């Protein structure tokens, strides 16, 4: 496999200097709900302006570029070891180019590693899959909003929360009210119900990879999400806690099985600077947050579009099968299937316009790819991952 380091660097740049469309839409809708001329209106207006200015300058939208959270789904044609090296290398490159602020501080000595690489940083989850290809999702989670997250152990008498859905709802309301504007409101609320302390929080973070405008496939949770997204606005916290009609942009809830003795509800707060991006490699096509990247770095010589479509179809079928098999992961697989379907449509659309360019570019890129492969290999050797000071058993294997 070719090094994906330059592609991951581009993923980081893209994610750090802008917001996903669904988030921008939600911010624009929030602005339009306010009276023009009010402080809430102009606060939203400035947030949107800031995103535009950042895009133009390729600069981080917020100086806190956050914790880097990568989720990697890799096919049999990729090696997780090399992917890890590529991702870590790309993080170093991105810090050098000031797409990222140096954000990895040694908790014991207080020393900043200077390149965002350290023990447990960046934070990468690997999921092997059977279909070829690669998907890397990235979330940049700001520190301010991470600080207002909360975990509840039910029952919690202080808020009258029992071990049922009503208790879960009370936890969410309580957490959002206590967060006020401190996490740079309006927030998108990721909730994990069940699991243990670790997996419960993990579920709450994974929920934040969903689009704001999607629908939870579980009808009970979908209803709760919808109800809370509406009723939490009554808190009136507004952007930055200045007061206003929008306190949250969305609520996303996932549930996991738990042991009978525990009942955790974990709430992760994502600030308005909700940075997430996705890199997908299908055949020789590369997509960045759903858009075809041109020029792509072709990895294979096969007639790409048909292969990509076939792979996508197969993947979709597999995802559906999997969702039937594993009840708890239904939503993720379904979401993946939907994404794949979208990808297919996009691939088809891109086909006609890109065909001419591709043909021209192909012969040129083929040679340079080989050269790049060699270069990448030598670069990789020069950029080792720091030795994990803690023993492997001490690191949470997520």
């Amino acid at each position, binding site marked *: 496999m070719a090094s994906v380091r330059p592609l991951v660097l581009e993923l980081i740049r893209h994610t750090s200097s802008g917001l996903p469309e669904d988030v921008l839409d939600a911010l624009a809708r929030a602005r339009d709900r306010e009276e023009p*001329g009010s*402080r809430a209106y*102009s*606060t939203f207006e*400035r*947030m949107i*302006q*800031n995103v535009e*200015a*950042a895009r133009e*300058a390729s*600069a*981080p*939208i*917020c*100086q*806190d570029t956050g914790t880097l959270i990568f989720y990697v789904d890799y096919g049999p044609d990729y090696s997780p070891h090399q992917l890890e090296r590529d991702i870590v290398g790309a993080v170093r490159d991105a810090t050098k180019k*000031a797409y990222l*602020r140096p954000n990895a501080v040694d908790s014991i000595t207080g020393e900043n590693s200077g390149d965002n690489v350290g023990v447990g940083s960046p934070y990468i989850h690997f999921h092997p899959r059977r279909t070829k290809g690669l998907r890397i999702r990235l979330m940049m989670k*700001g520190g*301010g909003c991470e600080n207002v997250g909360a975990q509840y152990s039910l029952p919690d008498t202080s*808020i*009258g929360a029992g*071990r*049922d*859905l*009503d208790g879960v*709802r*009370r936890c969410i*309301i*309580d957490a*959002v*009210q206590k967060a*006020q*504007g*401190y996490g*740079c409101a309006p927030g998108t609320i990721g909730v994990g119900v069940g699991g243990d302390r670790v997996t419960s929080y993990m579920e709450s973070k994974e929920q934040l990879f969903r689009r704001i405008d999607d629908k939870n496939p579980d009808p*009970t949770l979908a209803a*709760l999400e919808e*109800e809370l997204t509406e*009723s*939490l606005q*009554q*808190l*009136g*916290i*507004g*952007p*930055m*806690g*200045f*007061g206003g009609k929008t*306190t949250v942009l969305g609520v996303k809830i996932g549930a996991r099985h738990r042991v*009978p003795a525990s009942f955790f509800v974990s709430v992760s707060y994502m*600030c*308005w*600077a909700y940075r997430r991006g996705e890199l997908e490699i299908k055949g020789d096509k590369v997509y960045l947050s759903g858009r075809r990247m041109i020029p792509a770095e072709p990895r294979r010589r096969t007639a790409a579009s048909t292969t990509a479509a076939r792979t996508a179809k197969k993947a979709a079928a597999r995802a559906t099968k999997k969702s039937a098999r594993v009840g708890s992961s239904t939503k993720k697989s379904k979401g993946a299937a939907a994404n794949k379907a979208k990808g297919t449509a996009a691939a088809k659309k891109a086909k006609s316009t890109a065909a001419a360019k591709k043909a021209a570019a192909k012969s040129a890129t083929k040679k340079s790819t080989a050269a790049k492969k060699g270069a990448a290999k030598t670069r990789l050797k020069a950029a080792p991952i720091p030795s994990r000071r803690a023993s492997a058993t001490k690191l949470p294997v997520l």
Partner: protein
Amino acid sequence: MPKKIELPITESAIRELRIGDEVEISGLMVTGRDAAHKHLVKTFDETFHELAKDRFLYHCGPVVQRDGSGEWRFVAAGPTTSIREEPYEAEVIERYGIRGVIGKGGMGKRTLDAMQKYGCVYLHAIGGLAVVLAQCVVKVHGVHMLDPLGVPEAMWSIEVKDFPAVVTMDAHGGSLHETIFASSREAALRLMEKGIEAPPRSAAAK
């Protein structure tokens, strides 16, 4: 519509501001965060007094670049969390005659009392607005104590133009943070009481 504020500003003009007022600030002000605050209460710093009297103190750890001609430029200039300076701020306001503190998240009771007593306000900047706020910093006039404190902690004298903020603590003891906390708590309790219909999932009750 935002009120325009020109620095320096008088005590009576500051007392005209009320919580919830939207403002746009222009003129010279100075940055300072943890290390600067510790230093400012330990000694009386003449230079800082000159830079900050009747002006605003901005809780900001900027990202700064120096171009070829030696000019400093702010690349990112978002606010940092103010509550960390709570142990020092009341004294800094009293000693140095500061008329405004800019930051995010608001501050505590001691600072609020000092603001009422000496005529000062808290101005909340918008968090995450790195690029827009850096563009508001039109000129870096100088830097104080860069050597011992380092770039983010040093006191930067900067000229801003139309820097946006909202008054969330005023010189009359008012705090928007307290008001909104109280009203949102009430609303939260109401929402909790309203409840939802019994969960249709049998598993939830186990």
